């Protein structure tokens, strides 16, 4: 596949992530912060997000598995996850966290466990999508091409 085709494929793929709500404008913001002096900024931040999130998801699984669930603690973790997903533009994860927090407030264990499943699902989906996107970028760079900048009006 030649570079032009690869670039078009990347643009289409990235656009679909926005259309489907996986990513929001905050992700564009991150891309704007990347330049030739910091060419890996987005990958670096997203990698931190992955590490952070997986830790939090483990904590949440443990916390909800207790006989006496400490909802304040659960809420604190969800709050953190909501914050970091919001900061990188992972919109669906963020929205799932918002729903989750409502059930924490209600102290509804069953609902919280369902929410956790939902959050996990959204997380792994966006992780998969972003990793695919980064792979496409790498292929373009390896072929000597440049990453096309997606202009969007926000």
């Amino acid at each position, binding site marked *: 596949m030649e570079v032009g085709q690869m670039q078009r494929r990347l643009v289409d793929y990235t656009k679909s992530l926005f259309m489907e709500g996986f990513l929001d404008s905050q992700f564009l913001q991150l891309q704007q*912060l990347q*330049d030739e*002096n910091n060419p890996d900024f987005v990958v670096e*931040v997203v990698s*931190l997000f992955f590490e952070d999130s997986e830790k939090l998801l483990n904590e949440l699984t443990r916390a909800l598995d207790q006989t006496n669930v400490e909802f304040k603690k659960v809420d604190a973790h969800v709050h953190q996850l909501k914050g970091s997903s919001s*900061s990188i533009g992972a919109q669906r994860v963020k929205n799932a966290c918002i729903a989750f927090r409502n059930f*924490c407030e209600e102290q509804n264990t069953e609902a919280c466990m369902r929410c956790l499943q939902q959050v996990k699902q959204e997380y792994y989906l966006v992780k998969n999508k972003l990793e695919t996107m980064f792979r496409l970028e790498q292929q373009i760079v390896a072929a000597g091409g440049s990453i096309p900048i997606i202009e969007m009006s*926000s």
Partner: protein
Amino acid sequence: MARNGPTWRRRTEKVDGFELSPSDSEEVHVLAVDDSLVDRKVIERLLRISSCKVTAVDSGRRALQFLGLDEEKSNTGFQDLKVDLIITDYCMPGMSGYELLKKIKESSAFREIPVVIMSSENVLARIDRCLEEGAEDFIVKPVKLSDVERLKDYMTRDVRDGVRNREGINKRKQRDSSDELSSSSSPPSISSSPSSSSSQPSPSPSPSPSPSPSPSPSILSSSAPCSPSSTLDSPTRRLKMANSDGPPSI
């Protein structure tokens, strides 16, 4: 001095026998406080790309240590690294951003430093409380380039000049010789895609934000600083909604 044209701030070459080093420039030094690693990375980059020097710490406690305000540890060495602005997250384990704000405003040495609060929760009561305690501004997360650019505006205009004028010459000399912060700011290299919010007439919430008509009453949670609370349709929120929310049109 101006004959070479561009601003004298970031030149490093010799001019008329004077060696201008980066530390001699008027670069703003920001102390960023946030317990989230992801957010720290983002705010650091946002500040650096806006030509600020950044020190990022993960707690209010560490911020106080850096300033030399911590009762237990004294870090007199750091007091030479002049901080021009403190930007802190509100919700943090241990010391909250609000508590940090209070400590700074209570300190005779540091109360002049403008403090900006960041929060993902857009709660009018929280904003008011922070502004009343002396916060310069309140940013709703996620933080964007336009938010940081707005900060720089009032930093360069009134506040920072005021702070620096009070310093006197001696302090400035001290700072120049001891300025060894790791972060060298990268010159802004993005051809900025115009962010709509920077063209807003009054982007930052005024110290007394006018309450907006809202159907639901505010629920104040005073016990746990970061427990869930209902969001009000505050001026800040409205502003952000107008700027960037919703799926970008492609």
